[in-house]
Every structure is written in structure tokens, then in C-alpha cells.
């Protein structure tokens, strides 16, 4: 992934008034035209092919239900959420929570053409209510709350890195 210091921070974390993280955005440059990147972003049902944890995505009009799976050494969990889709073609796409877990999830991709259309600056933004996932709280956050500071940067980086890999994949 190409990062340029002059493009500004790679990851920006948003904090609540009490200092807890609430979301994060990550930026990167993808050496593909906006149209190519948009084709991947807009094909939501194919997110399961490149976004970690996404097992299945089913779209019905402007609503998408995501099934997620997460397996670690101790246990396996599955959960799902439904989100409303809004977008402006080749500029941005946003998925905003309407039901399920994690509560209040919002995922957004923003695209900006660069280098005369040869490349694309991408921002991936993610947030959700960490406390709404009981297993996450029980196993990870209750005794090691510092981990929450890594979750949102991880989500934001995964969004753009997965997108970069998917746009580079000829079959993507």
C-alpha cells in the first residue's frame, strides 16, 4: 500500500468525551482508477469474498444483511446485522445500522480520483457500539479494556487494505 506523509494521518481515531474510542478512519492510495475501485465497493454481495469476518451479504434493495463469523482459540461466534445502503456513485458508499449486532454499526468508503484518474485515494471509516457484543466484552474488554483502542484502527485499516487487495485481484 502506498502511503505518503503529505497525505496526512493514515489512521484517525475518534474519541468520546471520556476518552473511549468510538470509531476510526484510514486513508490509502490505490493505484487503480476510481471506476475500478467503485465497481468493487458497489458490489456489496461480494464483500464476503474479501472482507474478513463477513461470511455472507444479502442485498434487498437498499437494505443489506451481513452474516459474520469469528473464530478464535476458545470459541466460535456468529452474528448478523442489517444496514441501509446509501451512496453517490464513484464518490462514497455508506452502510448504516438498522438492526442486529453490533449495534449502531456504520461503514463508509469514500473515493477521490488522483493523478488524473490513474489512481484513487480511499478512506475507509468504521464505527459501532463495542459494548453491544457480549462475547467481545466478556472475553476481551472486561479485563483488558486497552484492547478497544486497537479495534477501530484495525477495522478501518482492514476496510481499505481488503479493498486494495480486491481491486488488484483480476477475479475480484
Amino acid at each position, binding site marked *: 500500500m502506498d502511503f505518503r*506523509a503529505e497525505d496526512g494521518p493514515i489512521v484517525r481515531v475518534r474519541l468520546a468525551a471520556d476518552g473511549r474510542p468510538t470509531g476510526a478512519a484510514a486513508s490509502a492510495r490505490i493505484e487503480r482508477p476510481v471506476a475500478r475501485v467503485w465497481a468493487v465497493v458497489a458490489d456489496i454481495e461480494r464483500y*464476503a*469474498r*474479501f472482507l*474478513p*469476518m463477513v*461470511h455472507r451479504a444479502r442485498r434487498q434493495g437498499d437494505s443489506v444483511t451481513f452474516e459474520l*463469523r*469469528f*473464530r*478464535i*482459540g*476458545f*470459541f*466460535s461466534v456468529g452474528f448478523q446485522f442489517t444496514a441501509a445502503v446509501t451512496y453517490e456513485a464513484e464518490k462514497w458508499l455508506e452502510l448504516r445500522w438498522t438492526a442486529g449486532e453490533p449495534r449502531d454499526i456504520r461503514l463508509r468508503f469514500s473515493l477521490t480520483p488522483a493523478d488524473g484518474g490513474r489512481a484513487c485515494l480511499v478512506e475507509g471509516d468504521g464505527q459501532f457500539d463495542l459494548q453491544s457484543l457480549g462475547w467481545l466484552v*466478556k*472475553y*476481551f474488554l472486561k*479485563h*483488558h*479494556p*486497552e*484492547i478497544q*483502542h*486497537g479495534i477501530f484502527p*484495525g477495522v478501518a485499516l482492514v476496510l481499505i487494505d*481488503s479493498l486494495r*487487495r*480486491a481491486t488488484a*485481484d483480476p*477475479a*475480484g
Partner: protein
Amino acid sequence: MRTLVHLTCITTTAPWKLGAADLARARAVGLPDETTLQVVLLSAYFGHLNRVADAVGIELDYPTDLTPPHAEPTTPPYRRPAPPEWPDADARPALELACRSGAAESLAAWRAHALLREAPLARDQRAVIAYAVAERLGDAATVRELAAPPSSPLAAALVEAADEVTLAPWRLGAATIARLRAAGLTDDVAVFDALATAAACTTFSRIQVALAALAAPSRV
């Protein structure tokens, strides 16, 4: 950017090898001391997060076109410094945590939370882990602060887990968890607490060692 990467790599793999020359190089390319400190802090913190991910064995349980990175268990562990290589714990650090607002207070609060609680692990079990991690990173101040671990099957298992978390986290897996369970940690939450506490201790000791080392002549 190269200086940032250099500082990150040394902090991650061998923080005791940092030296005054690294700090001088950072200053020469225009990095404020606060930025250099932030590089050390973030490198140490993300070392913690990556170890937690390794410890819990996060896997994709569905087919994907894009193969995730593969952990290779035969990769050699990071080198453990001999005591003569440990930075002087009494030397005045070249970089103070105070040069980044809130850093000292946040780190102290996190360290107290990680080491002074009595559950799921007991406080003395946390001390065993902290001591083992400190020994493996050359953190003389923490080794001096804590007593050497007692001899018991559980202490031995905790030391073994701390060793793996610190020096070869890519080897963490079912065998690590099985050893902890066999030694008496039957509850999953306690097992995770042991591994995450060790990972947290790598952050505390790594920062301690890196900041002490930056005041010393560089080591080869």
C-alpha cells in the same frame, strides 16, 4: 519515513539495541522528540495487539479468494538479551514520557490495572508474568521491582507462556493453551487473561527498555 520505520523495527525486535545515535538521527531528520516518543509508544502498543491476535488464534472460518498471512511456527524467536546488554535502569532517559501529554498517566493506569488486580489471575501470578517478560526484554527496572517467580507447575506454565508471547508470538496456539490448562488455568477467561497480561507486559517493558536505551551509546 525511513527513520520512523527504523525506530519501529528496532523497538519491535530488539529495543535494547536503540541508542543515542538513533535519537540523534531522528532529530537530524527533523523528528520532534514527541514524535519519536510516539513511535516507541505505538510500536510497543501494537506489539501488544498483534500478540493478542496471535494468542487467541483468530482465523477465517470460511473460504476466501485472498489468502490471509500465514504464521510460520519454525520462524526463530527474537533474541533474548544477556544481562550485560540490558540498558541501565538508573540512567536518566533521553526521552521522558512527560514530553507527550498524558502518556505517563495513561501508561501508569494501564500498568496498575494489568498487574495489581486479583482476578481472573491473582496478583502474584501477574507478577510472575511481568518478571518473565522483563527478563526477556532486558527491563532491569521491573526485574529489580519484582521478586523472582516461585517454583510451581502453574508458575512454570505462566513463564513458558510469557516466553512465547514475548519472543515467538507466532508460535502461540492450542499447545500453549493446553499447557496453561494442564497447570490449573481451566477457565477460558483466565487463560486469555494470562496471555493478554503477558502481551501487555511486553508493552510496559519494551517502552521502559527503549527509553533507557536511547540514552546509551548505540549497540551493534
